[in-house]
């Protein structure tokens, strides 16, 4: 579904990504972790071309992201993305947040779009909040709406960039629960997260990044059993003792 091959990226002379290679198969859940500044966000943003890269290739559902002929808006519409800071549109109601891209990008009618949005809102347990504005919801609620907004586009896969790290601890689980449910339904997911409980529960593989490189790319059991690299071991010890 997602094939990342030898991707390197520079900001000026600073290399953010070094020869990254991995893949996410259909219905697979891959967790990406690593210290701050290791390039996790950058890598995941390369997948839906929010960030350009200078070397290598990324193929999503058979379409090469780096190909100048690729219709990027069309590709992105099929790849759901959830951000650390939710990024709901604060000037629109929850209903409009859920409906606008369906209407303007997919060309659905307003009624159909609202209908679909409300169904997904119900699924994340927020049906009663439809008429409110994002600023009136808690962080956890906003993030669940953001997930519903991405799902409303019928994505073929979902990207998550630290979806719970801006949340108060008591709200983390309500968001993780939605993600776990998604994983169980067979959604293809690439998640940057340090929630190792989540990784243990649903991940197929765990990727560990450090200084722009993929240092470890292992099946969940192997990763938690005994990571091969010392850096991953140190990192795991640090975040598991938290």
């Amino acid at each position, binding site marked *: 579904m997602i094939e990342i091959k030898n991707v390197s990226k520079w900001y000026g002379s600073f290399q953010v990504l070094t020869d990254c290679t991995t893949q996410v198969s259909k219905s697979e859940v891959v967790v990406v972790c690593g210290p701050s500044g290791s390039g996790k966000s950058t890598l995941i*943003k390369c997948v*839906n071309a*929010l960030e350009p890269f200078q070397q290598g290739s990324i193929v999503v559902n058979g379409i090469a992201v780096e190909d100048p002929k690729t219709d*990027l*808006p*069309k590709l*992105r*519409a*099929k*790849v*759901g*993305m959830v*951000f650390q*800071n939710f*990024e*709901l*549109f*604060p*000037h629109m109601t929850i209903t409009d947040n859920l409906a*606008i*891209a369906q209407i*303007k*990008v*997919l060309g659905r009618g307003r009624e159909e779009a609202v209908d679909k949005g409300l169904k997904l809102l119900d699924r994340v347990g927020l049906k009663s909040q439809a008429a409110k*504005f*994002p*600023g*009136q919801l808690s962080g956890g609620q906003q993030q669940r709406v953001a997930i519903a*907004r*991405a799902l409303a*586009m019928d994505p073929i896969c979902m990207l998550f960039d630290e979806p719970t790290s801006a949340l108060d601890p008591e709200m983390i689980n309500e968001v993780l629960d939605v993600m776990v449910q998604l994983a169980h339904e067979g959604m293809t997911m690439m998640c940057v997260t340090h929630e190792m409980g989540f990784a243990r529960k649903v991940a197929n593989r765990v990727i560990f990044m450090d200084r722009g490189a993929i240092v470890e790319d292992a099946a969940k059991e192997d990763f938690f059993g005994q990571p091969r690299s010392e850096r991953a071991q140190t990192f795991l010890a640090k975040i598991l003792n938290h």
Partner: protein
Amino acid sequence: MSDFDFSVIAANWAFLAEGLRYTLQVTVTAMLGGILIGTLLALMRLSSIVPLQWFAAGYVNVFRSVPLVQVILAFYLIIPLVLQMITGKSTPIGAANSAYFTFTIFEAAYYSEIMRSGIQSIPKGQIAAGYALGFTYGQTMRFVVLPQAFRNMLPVLLTQTIILFQDISLVYAIGATDFFGAADKITQRDLRPVEMYTTVAVVYFVICFTLSRLVKLLQSRIAIIR
């Protein structure tokens, strides 16, 4: 001459009202046109296409460094010449009409700076979210960035409009008759400056004060809930 005699106002009301109507019409035209062109200029300035950046920067800098009176005069002289070049025949458009054009073009420079800071105040993540949903650049601007920028900047935009409203009086330079100009002409003839200018001041005050109250009201009504 010793007593105040406000009958001069009543006697010339129609002429004053005509002037006020003109002032308001130019204000509204230049506000709407100026915000539209200003927004386009702001987008050009912030685009990644260098010639567009230069054009927008040049536009803004030129109009912000030339006194408005001079622009009003220059455009009054130049517009007919340009029109003649295009149409091939002499097309005098008159002082009153030339001011609509001049103020729109001039104010666009100021509105564009306001819209530029408004656009820049929108977090990068909002733009990323727009793109991630499959919006094009234009859609991201139209549905995500500009509505928020506009709301954030509304008070400043309206404050600029109040300044614009007051600046319309400069059309005296080309002999057009706005509200202030009308009062001035009557004063020259009837020699009742105190009554006339008091009335003019009161009207300007009432309109500007109402507008600034409106700014406050709008601010609380359409403010983004955060």
